[in-house]
């Protein structure tokens, strides 16, 4: 029983990080349909912002979070206004453009902050471990789990309980009709993109104390993020959660039975098989076409 719980906890903590990384992309790609290859670099910017706030202003991780969200969000807004909005009806060009932005960001960070690996100190209160149902879990992982749950709730409420969310859903369903009803589609898109980028920034800040911070760190995360969103079903926020949880548990248990190298390969095979038989992903949001 304890062994089983241990596995579930491991799966949950892997899944929570996957969801954290994918949540911003679920909006940008899922709702807006922008294939944002620079998502990983937004995350990397978040990690470096945290490191910089920590090193140059002495701010701890917790007090940095709001600034990081605003900083990377503002940056995302600028990218949307400066580049993405000209490419909404040209998906292939969007891939190229965002990929280019990603490479530029990597090199800018490498040139300004240096290419050596960095780290962000974990908040002292979260370094302890906690015991949940007899299973020892790192305090920080529990913290990440709670923050991710809160961010998801916030995003869900934003999408489905606010006026802004209604406008966004209207634009997603039919941009022209929504515009006819007086929705400023441009503004809705740029704010959504900024929010998604801000979430990626937060993800970067939160993974920084567990993993290493380097200019290339985003590359691995962007792949994970796309898997989660595509598997969950594009446009389905709920699907993203289920898919992150599923991939987390799958990775955790396969890594237990075999090892991380094999687990990674098997998880990819599983995704390919599922997508083969359910190209629309696990969950489908009802959209009038």
């Amino acid at each position, binding site marked *: 029983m304890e062994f089983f719980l241990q596995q579930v906890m491991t799966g949950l903590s*892997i899944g929570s990080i996957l969801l954290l990384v994918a949540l911003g992309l679920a909006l940008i790609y899922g709702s807006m349909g922008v294939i944002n290859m620079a998502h990983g670099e937004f995350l990397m910017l978040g990690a470096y912002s945290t490191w910089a706030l920590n090193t140059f202003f002495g701010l701890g991780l917790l007090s940095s979070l709001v600034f990081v969200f605003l900083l990377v969000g503002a940056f995302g807004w600028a990218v949307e206004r400066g580049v993405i909005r000209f490419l909404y009806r040209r998906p292939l060009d969007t891939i190229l453009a965002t990929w280019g932005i990603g490479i530029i960001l990597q090199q800018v960070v490498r040139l300004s902050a240096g290419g050596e690996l960095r*780290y962000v*100190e974990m908040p002292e209160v979260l370094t302890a471990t906690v015991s949940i149902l007899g299973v*020892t879990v790192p305090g920080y992982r529990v913290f990440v789990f709670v923050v991710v749950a809160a961010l998801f709730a916030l995003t869900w409420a934003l999408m489905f309980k606010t006026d802004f969310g209604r406008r966004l859903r209207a634009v997603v369903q039919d941009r022209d009709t929504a515009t006819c009803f007086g929705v400023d589609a441009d503004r809705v898109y740029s704010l959504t993109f900024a929010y998604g980028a801000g979430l990626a920034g937060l993800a970067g800040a939160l993974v920084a104390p567990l*993993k290493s911070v380097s200019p290339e760190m985003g590359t691995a995360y962007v792949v994970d993020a796309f898997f989660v969103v595509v598997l969950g079903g594009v446009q389905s926020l709920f699907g993203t959660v289920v898919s992150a949880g599923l991939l987390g548990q799958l*990775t955790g248990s396969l890594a237990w039975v075999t090892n*991380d190298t094999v687990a990674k390969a098997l998880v990819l095979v599983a995704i390919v098989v599922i997508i083969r038989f359910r190209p629309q992903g696990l969950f489908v949001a009802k959209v009038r076409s």
Partner: protein
Amino acid sequence: MTLKRRTFLQGAAAASVAAATGFPHIWSKNAGLARAQGGEIKVGVLFSLTGTTGIIEESLNKATLLAIEEINEAGGINGMRIVPIVEDPASDPATFAEKARKLVVGDRCVSVFGSYTSASRKAVLPVFERRDNLYWYPTLYEGRECSKNVIYTGAVPNQQQDEFIPWLFENFGPRFYLIGSNYIYPKEENNYCRKLLAELGGEVVDEEYVPLGHSEFSSVINKIRSTQPNVIFSTVVGDSVVAFHRQYRAAGLDPETMPMASLTTSENEVAAMGGDAAAGHFTSAPYFMVHDSPENQRFVEAYQRRWGGDKVTHFVSEPSYFQVYLFKQAVEKLAASDIDPPTIREAVRGEELMAPQGRIRIDPDNLHAWLWPKIAVARSDGQFEVLRSSSDWLRPDPYAAYPGQVCTVNGLVEG
């Protein structure tokens, strides 16, 4: 002068005839003279300055250039200046091979100092073997190579493990958990570790490999928690080292009872993960920055004066530095007209030198270095504390895990 198509073709034809008959002959006859011309000795410096391993290799480049500058300032080699030709292979094995060819064939260097990864060394090896040139490789590596065209100044498995494993066994217990990144180096090291543990009566509770660049260690830590080994023997490299240490600490595991014993964690990795995450874990290597010797004090001071007071020296930058002095010692024994890669190789066999880590020697048979293994524990200030130094230099045995195979002057001998 205008070049018409016809005259150009005639000229080209004449040149190719000359190349086919005359040139090669003249070329080889005067090779020795041509190589050390006008009081200059050309050497290649081939470390990546960009790309994934750019940061670490840049420190090797700096250590090499420092040694060359020092030698030139002190009057060069028999009055001849060393002229370094620096190339950036950009962390890409194919580019390594291409740049190596340029240095060996185009620039006619008598030796090249370079490489951090085994992949890049394997990529340049054919170039050096075909041209019978010399490659000086400073990195600790997995052994199992026997080339007369490479001088290996880093440690091989027996030099890092022969004293380390018994020491860990005595101090912490017999149960080892082997974890490494998924490529050749960790597999060969673990292979040798298994052999040593079998001799000691120890036990391998698990042997596991994570993908290169892996950063999610939840499952590994779970397994460690449930198998409760005495020692976690780690050959994880790169970013993964940082993630593994930080997650180990977050999981509340204790280095006092279940330390990580690493062959790959140097001052560099400790700086990247933060001293707190590294503190209490062990590393075995021939060199640590804190090593107390007049040679090392000089090296560290010179390095920081030249490249910045916050820079660290580590167990790969130290061989990068002293191997240039070995090169100097070997070339000094030769007449200017004899300076050629094969003669340098013969001159360096058995050569000894006071390096920062202690007196080292190039093995006359396998061209690897006799080194001084040390065991150190990381402290929270980012430096190591040396707990144990070898009482004698240790012979390199690149085939230690493969009884019956010996690297000799005439290459690999079986049986």
